[in-house]
């Protein structure tokens, strides 16, 4: 096995790593924002809003990411919307992660005990205020582990964007492979890089969770205490 030709292309690989990070980070932030909006819509707006949100979630969760990518990259231009590979990748990742996050956050919101809601409305809050100030943060904290897993999965799924020639890490790997003809060496290096990125992201999200939600310990007792009373 010869690794040198591959390492000579490290420039390309580093650029690929950078694009993977940028795409993933952006999709995470945008996807989460979208998810919070959709959960708010589903919780606060009428029945039809809930049905539309559910339909969107089911659609994204029961079709492959690749097909969603193709639909956006190849389909939107037929409607007159042209976008680059990177733009299509970001949009697809955002919509996909948004759907999964909506499901996760919704479950978190529904797991908050009704008594918190009662306390909020008894203090004359509107339902929107209860959602925004009372329920949302604890729900987020409660599902942070599940959300974190989903974020890591999306970062790994960004590899599929290479199918539309986006030069994130996998796309870069394909080019390096073409240039050097050293398939196994290329992919083992890239695999190790993904491994390091995934584990780092996991650790980072764990740390972030502790910073954002310092009172998580109190939340797990939220249900039990109310039930015991």
């Amino acid at each position, binding site marked *: *096995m010869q690794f040198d030709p591959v390492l000579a292309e490290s420039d390309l690989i580093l650029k690929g790593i950078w694009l993977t990070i940028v795409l993933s980070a952006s999709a995470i932030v945008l996807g989460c924002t979208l998810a919070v909006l959709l959960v708010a819509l589903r919780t606060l707006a009428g029945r039809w809003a809930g049905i539309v949100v559910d339909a969107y979630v*089911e*659609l994204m*969760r*029961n*079709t*492959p*990411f*690749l*097909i*969603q990518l*193709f*639909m956006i990259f*190849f*389909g939107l*231009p*037929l409607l007159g919307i042209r976008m680059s590979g990177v733009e299509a990748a970001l949009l697809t990742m955002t919509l996909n992660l948004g759907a999964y996050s909506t499901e996760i956050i919704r479950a978190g919101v529904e797991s908050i005990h009704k008594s918190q809601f009662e306390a909020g409305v008894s203090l004359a809050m509107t339902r929107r205020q209860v959602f925004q100030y009372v329920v949302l943060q604890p729900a987020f904290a409660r599902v942070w582990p599940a959300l974190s897993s989903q974020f*890591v999965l999306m970062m*790994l*799924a*960004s*590899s*599929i964007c*290479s*199918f539309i020639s986006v030069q994130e890490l*996998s796309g870069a790997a394909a080019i390096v492979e073409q240039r050097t003809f050293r*398939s*196994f060496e290329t*992919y*083992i290096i*890239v*695999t190790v890089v*993904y*491994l390091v990125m*995934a*584990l780092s992201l*996991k650790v980072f999200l764990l740390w972030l969770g502790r910073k954002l939600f310092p009172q998580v310990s109190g939340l797990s007792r939220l249900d039990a205490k109310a039930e015991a009373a």
Partner: protein
Amino acid sequence: MQTFGWPEAMFIFRAAGWTLLLTAISFAIGSLIGGAFAIMRLSRIKLVRNFAAGYILVIQSIPVLMVLFMSYYGLSIIGIELPPFFAASASLAVYVSAYLAEIWRGSIESVPYQQWEASASLAHSPAQTYRYVILPQAIRISLPPTVGFLVQLVKNTSIVSVVGFVELSRAGQLVNNATFQAFQVFSLVAVIYFAICFPLSRLSRHLEKVMNASRSH
């Protein structure tokens, strides 16, 4: 430029059949390997346990695309060149094995410890405990997440074209390249995937509800 007509649709439907077959075979092989790793993960021997844990961790921390490439190019380095279907099945089986091992290990560990105690108190050997008390319960617990994972597997078959196999997604790509009717083509493909995955997703949720109901006694 071709039009998107019946022959093209038929091509896509046939490819869907291959997707189902690929799913079934990789699930079957992956289950066997996964079961073995689940048992290894619970072994008393630290080396065995750590090896299994490492295997699972690595495969769960890399893209499925990389699992495919590693399996395919790894095999070719030791001289084995598999035809596309078998290359795809083998690679996916590796992916399946890690995730199922983790799900099944989790299921075995969720059987309440009181069951182990009760069984031991009835003078069962460890093997008997597993066979008559633990595994039946673990299997029931594992059904919802296993069916849920099956949905993931179906979706992940979409990328095996990288090892040269033409399944549903690749068929869609080919037809799109020929007809440029992206909307129609990928809508059909999406509908087929949805028709396969949605019932499985519902089944998984239904199984979970049934399980939670029976658990609360």
